């Protein structure tokens, strides 16, 4: 008997049964190169052009971007410029949102490089041109939760995701901040990029700080990353707290914020362990300051704050008033640094944040949300996307998601902005259905949705000034006169999706 031979035959037989090869030592490569040196030559590190070529991107495919750098973003323009230079045409751009800074896309649309767009919002010149009919295919607008769902279900398929990150190691472990001394940028949470990283066919990380392996704790895992591109800058962090996100000094905003805080405190939901989110917009952000005082006075603590995390929220957390922060997007540098340093400040993906079909999404656990609005109508429908001049000038953001899932949604808006009424007969564009809107706070009084009589009773008992929403509309008209109708055309330039994937409204071109 030859024991070794026998065993070899048995290995061969078992391998055959399993339909496998027998181990061959020749296939094992042993590399004694010092690892620090070896890692620098990671096959994932390429130039942007190489990444695009190797990704297999073709005309007609879908590329995606996040907007964590908001007005300071440099990735969208850099990548689309490169794609144009390389001769790509007919691409679909799936951004989590677009800002004023993305004005150069106008030329790329005119030249046929980009022929369709999906986003949460549009601002500036790009929004202006699209509102006037720049594109043949309507822009598809989704909420943040809705975008997460659409990506997860495959309704929005991403071929190549281009993700700006403030640090990344040669394997692709990436973060919205950097712990290295060479840190150039910081955006904090990468929440809106996480579904892209998970579901896109190919993922390219662009980073302005290529750090040593392992870049942990990381928000995007190397497992999901195909290419790493080192660039001069992914974004200007100082421009994150710009645009919609600002710290208000406007006395009317402060009055609105104080009133909103009173509504919260007397709503019946202001209890030990409650949870809260504030949207962008001066008044809703400022309300946090006033809620803080009530929390201290009444010794009430929040279990978590959701958002859209700001320096205000971080302060309350550090003071022990809010136990945890769940952060899909860091609204300023303080928040971005907090998510880097504080394990109780959790990064959440768009799906974990607000998707309707994700039972564990944080909005499902949300008590109170304060939101802003461009317009509210007498049925409590809200528009946050299209200005009263018919031009797109905003974003759905998490408006639909948080209003629908929260126990109490509060819209804070002035009655008039200049001569433009904010309480109207019918919203220009429907973004958040009135059924999910509970309270509207204006400087002329508070209107409570008739669906929520219990809230109206509590606020009345607290001595707050409750008014009928129709009265607010009439009050506005009395001051401004009757506006002439807007000169809308017949071309559909935008389609507004509800978070459940149904079509909510269309935006027509404006001939102004």
């Amino acid at each position, binding site marked *: 008997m030859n024991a070794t031979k026998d065993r070899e035959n048995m290995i061969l037989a078992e391998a055959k049964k399993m339909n496998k090869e027998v181990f061959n030592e020749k296939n094992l490569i042993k590399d004694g190169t010092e690892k620090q040196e070896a890692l620098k030559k990671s096959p994932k590190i390429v130039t942007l052009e190489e990444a695009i070529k190797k990704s297999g991107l073709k005309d007609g495919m879908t590329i995606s971007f996040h907007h964590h750098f908001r007005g300071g973003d440099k990735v969208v323009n850099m990548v689309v410029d490169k794609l144009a230079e390389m001769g790509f045409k007919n691409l679909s751009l799936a951004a989590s949102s677009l800002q004023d800074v993305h004005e150069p896309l106008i030329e790329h649309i005119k030249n046929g490089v980009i022929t369709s767009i999906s986003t949460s919002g549009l601002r500036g010149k790009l929004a202006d041109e699209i509102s006037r009919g720049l594109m043949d295919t309507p822009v598809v607008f989704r909420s943040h939760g809705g975008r997460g769902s659409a990506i997860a279900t495959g309704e929005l398929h991403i071929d190549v995701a281009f993700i700006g990150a403030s640090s990344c190691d040669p394997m692709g472990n990436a973060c919205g901040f950097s712990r290295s001394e060479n840190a150039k940028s910081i955006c904090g949470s990468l929440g809106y990029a996480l579904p892209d990283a998970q579901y896109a066919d190919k993922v390219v990380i662009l980073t302005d700080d290529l750090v040593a392996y392992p870049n942990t704790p990381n928000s995007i895992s190397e497992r999901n990353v195909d290419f790493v591109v080192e660039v001069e800058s992914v974004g200007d962090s100082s421009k994150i707290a710009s645009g919609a996100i600002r710290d208000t000094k406007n006395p009317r905003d402060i009055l609105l914020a104080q009133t909103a805080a009173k509504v919260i405190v007397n709503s019946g939901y202001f209890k030990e362990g409650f949870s809260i989110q504030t949207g962008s917009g001066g008044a809703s952000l400022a309300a946090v300051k006033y809620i803080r005082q009530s929390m201290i006075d009444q010794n009430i603590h929040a279990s978590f704050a959701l958002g859209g995390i700001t320096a205000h929220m971080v302060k309350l957390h550090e003071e022990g008033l809010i136990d945890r922060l769940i952060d899909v997007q860091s609204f300023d540098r303080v928040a971005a640094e907090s998510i880097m340093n504080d394990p109780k400040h959790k990064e959440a993906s768009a799906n974990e944040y607000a998707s309707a079909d994700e039972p564990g999404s944080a909005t499902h656990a949300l008590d109170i949300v304060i939101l802003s609005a461009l317009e509210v109508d007498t049925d409590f429908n809200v528009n946050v996307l299209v200005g*009263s*001049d*018919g031009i797109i000038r905003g974003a759905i953001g998490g408006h639909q998601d948080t209003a629908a899932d929260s126990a109490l949604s509060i819209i804070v808006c002035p009655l*008039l*902005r*200049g*001569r*433009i009424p904010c309480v109207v007969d019918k919203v220009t564009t429907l973004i958040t259905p009135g059924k999910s809107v509970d309270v509207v706070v204006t400087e002329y009084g508070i209107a409570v949705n008739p669906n929520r009589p219990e809230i109206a009773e509590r606020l009345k008992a607290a001595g707050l000034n409750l008014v009928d929403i129709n009265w607010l509309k009439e009050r506005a008209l009395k*001051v*401004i*006169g009757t*506006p*002439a109708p*807007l*000169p809308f055309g017949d071309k559909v330039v935008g389609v507004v999706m509800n978070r459940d994937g149904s079509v909510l409204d269309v935006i027509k071109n404006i001939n*102004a």
Partner: protein
Amino acid sequence: MTINKAFAGTLESGDIMIQIEPSEEGKLNIELDSTVAYQFGEQIKKVIADTLKELEITSANVKATDKGALDCTIKARVTCAAVRATGKDVWNA
């Protein structure tokens, strides 16, 4: 009535800047640039014209740069510009 070059108002949101110049055409020419022109352009021009007529100004070139001012603001700014242009005090007269 002699009209000199004058202006009133600012370019702040919610305000209107009114610039008045003499005209040789013997009528009011109102040139309006407004952030709310489509909804309120005609109404704004009417308030400017009515206010000037009340002040007996029937010939002038008026340039109005509007940032969403309400009628009361427009009336106040036009009156102020007219007083400065004519030197005729309408408040203490």
